[in-house]
């Protein structure tokens, strides 16, 4: 087994209901399980299909199984499918050592759409995330996925970015074989492309 930077390593994948975050956590966790790590996932979704905030916690250990809940202030890595949701997770689980990878595309809450609330200024939000993390990457994952012709692949672009950030004991080939096990063949061409684009985006920022 590859060494992990902390044990247990606490990963949070957050976003909005319908963005596919539960599938992402399953892909990452299954790939790690195959490599012999103890992995636990907690899925917090309530009524996920109705626009609410959704997150999965993924806990990875080489020593013994942990429960699915991460203690407050103890995230090591946050993968955000939406910038406001990354910020929401930093508020509860962030710390000076945390690393974040965030999709830049905002999904406005219904309160913003109905003019009750105002979405935070995009640049200010980005700067704040940078300030509150040891390292922050931003990925235009929704744009990349749209260019590939399928907004639904945004989450796979983000998985590619996660692998390139080298924060997990996972290599690209581990994820590719996990994807072959998970998706129907006709979806694989798109998904491999999405994984590749996400991976390269981070690589060019490193």
């Amino acid at each position, binding site marked *: 087994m590859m060494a992990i930077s902390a044990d247990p390593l606490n990963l949070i994948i957050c976003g909005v209901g319908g963005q596919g975050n539960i599938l992402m956590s399953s892909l990452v966790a299954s790939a790690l399980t195959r490599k012999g790590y103890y992995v636990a996932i907690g899925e917090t979704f309530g009524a996920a299909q109705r626009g609410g905030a959704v997150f999965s916690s993924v806990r990875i250990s080489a020593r013994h199984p942990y429960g699915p809940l991460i203690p407050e202030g103890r995230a090591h890595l946050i993968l955000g499918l939406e910038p406001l949701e990354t910020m929401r997770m930093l508020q509860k689980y962030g710390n000076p050592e945390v690393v974040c990878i965030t999709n830049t595309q905002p999904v406005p809450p219904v309160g913003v759409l109905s*003019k009750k609330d105002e979405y935070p200024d995009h640049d200010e939000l980005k700067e704040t995330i940078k300030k509150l993390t040891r390292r922050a990457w931003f990925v235009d994952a929704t744009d990349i996925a749209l260019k590939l012709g399928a907004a639904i692949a945004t989450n796979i672009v983000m998985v590619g970015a996660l692998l390139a950030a080298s924060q997990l004991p996972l290599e690209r080939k581990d994820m590719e074989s996990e994807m072959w096990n998970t998706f129907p063949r006709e979806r694989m061409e798109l998904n491999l492309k999405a994984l590749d684009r996400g991976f390269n985006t981070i690589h060019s920022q490193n």
Partner: protein
Amino acid sequence: MPNIATHSPGSVVLLQGNEAIARGALEGGAQVCTAYPGTPSSEIIATLAPVAKDRGIHVEWSINEKVATEVAGAAAFAGLRSLSAMKNAGLNVAMDFLMHLNLSTLGDRGGGMVVVVCDDPQAHASGDEEDTRWTAQMANVPLLEPGNPQEAKDMTKWALDLSEELSCYCFLRGYTRLSHSRGPVKLGELPSPTRKANFDTSKGYSPYIAPPKHAALIEKMARLRERFESSPFNPYSGPEHPELLIICSGSGGFCSLDAVEALGLTKSVGILRLGTLWPFPQDLVRSYVARTGKVLVVEEVDPFLEVHVKEAIVSPSPVGSPEIYGKGSGHIGYYGEMTPDVVIKALSKIFNLEYQARDRRYEDEVQNAASQMVIDRGMAWCPGCPHRASFFALRNAIRKDGRKALVTGDIGCYALDIFPYGTHQTNVLHCMGSGAGTACGFGELGQFDFKQPVVAICGDSTFFHASVPALINAVYNKSNMTLVILDNDVTAMTGFQPHPGTGRTATQEATTIVDAEALCRSLGCRVEIRDPFDTKATTAALVELMKDEEGVRVLILRRKCELLRMRQERKQLFKVWVTPEKCTGEKCGYCYQVLQCPGISWDKETGKARVQETLCVGCGFCADICPLKAIVKEEIA
């Protein structure tokens, strides 16, 4: 792609708690599995249904939890093994049967039955935080509580074995953080169940006469308790003589582990995690308590363990005089779910430790930033949801009527009406079917000068589940009410399960469509049917039905759940856009502030309404209601 029945024995796979329970049912040879959907339990049957045919088992979505347990009970009487699954609130519906089945035994044919109840501490997706452990004590039947997905699988199988041996159903208690967590599960062998169903009609089973049968049950549980005292499902980890002993169950186990590690207390704190909760293994608890001077009981919601630990310590004779911490001492709360931080806080207080999750400067900085930036992400009906249109019409009809009509509701996506982005028309909302039941009651208050029109709301699935008896009562007792059935052709909120009105079974077989309209007509109700997207006709029907005081009225508002329609048809109906010249923006706001569909919003730059292209599903309803005709819809060929 592999499924729950094709993973090979001996392999380790990552399973959701509910999937693990489903696998446990297969490994335990369950041949009949039933449920009514309810979060967080729904995935158990949803996992079993697709493999039912290959495995040669019967899996069904039942009309409600009571019937689900009755179907499973019949299978046990006929010598098979069965499982029935439900959420916390569902157990209340099933209890009438289960409080008799405990006394009658499951017969002599060697059948077994596990009742899986998934509780929801923190009420993530429930109306309450009720705790099934007391129910097991009340019924005096065994209750097992897994601490992780592996145990969920193993205990489901064991519960079936135990049930068969005792001829008594067993509870398996899940909870949200088990049902909706995933962890590695080592799989066991899958037997091919070949039992044939048969009932020996020379025998009879009932709870009558209760006292001797109750006595037999009590004796059975006393014998079972002795076995539970040495069960491997009550693991202990920690030093031989801990300074403090944590006694916990379920999620209390992993939360305690995190807390003990975070505070560096592994050498002084031991964790006894109980998995066999009823009958309570009191001697085991006494033997561990004897090794320590302090006990902290870690459990969510009710003090079930705490009450029994306290009792075990004094009876039959006192075990020293340990200090007991938990809910009674104020170290742990009586509501909400267990988290590592709850245990960290309790231990820090007992051991007088300073614990800081992160440095203070960061804490201040992050809270300060969050207070300016982090806005709520409220729940709302999906774009294109027919419920939004139904409530929109109801709101207008109530205004037109002008007699302060009262609305009673129940459980489904339409319960979002009382949440911040609903229309707030619903005045009284409780459990499944109680919209119809309470409306019936209000509608019977005429002799006490009650003059307001009464409108009950239910969904199509809720109609069958628990509204029909209330509707019959309304007809029989001459209530003055209107029942509105929001018929979206599916049990949407829990994940698109079919129901008796859909013509499909859990295993996707075609079946008789139970016709709600014909059923209501046969009761003598006046029945009207409208499409809620035809807002004029719907509003007019509501106004008229509220006025009509001749007998009970039913309005069926029929339109398919938009998520389901999109899955099936994969196309938008309309292209929708705003003509900025006609839109008066803030002066009006009818679409984004009154209708509040996430597909249309206020645009900060132009000050006008704007279609959110990634969210809009093209239903076109906003174009129909725009008072200025500024929103345009064009049919997509």
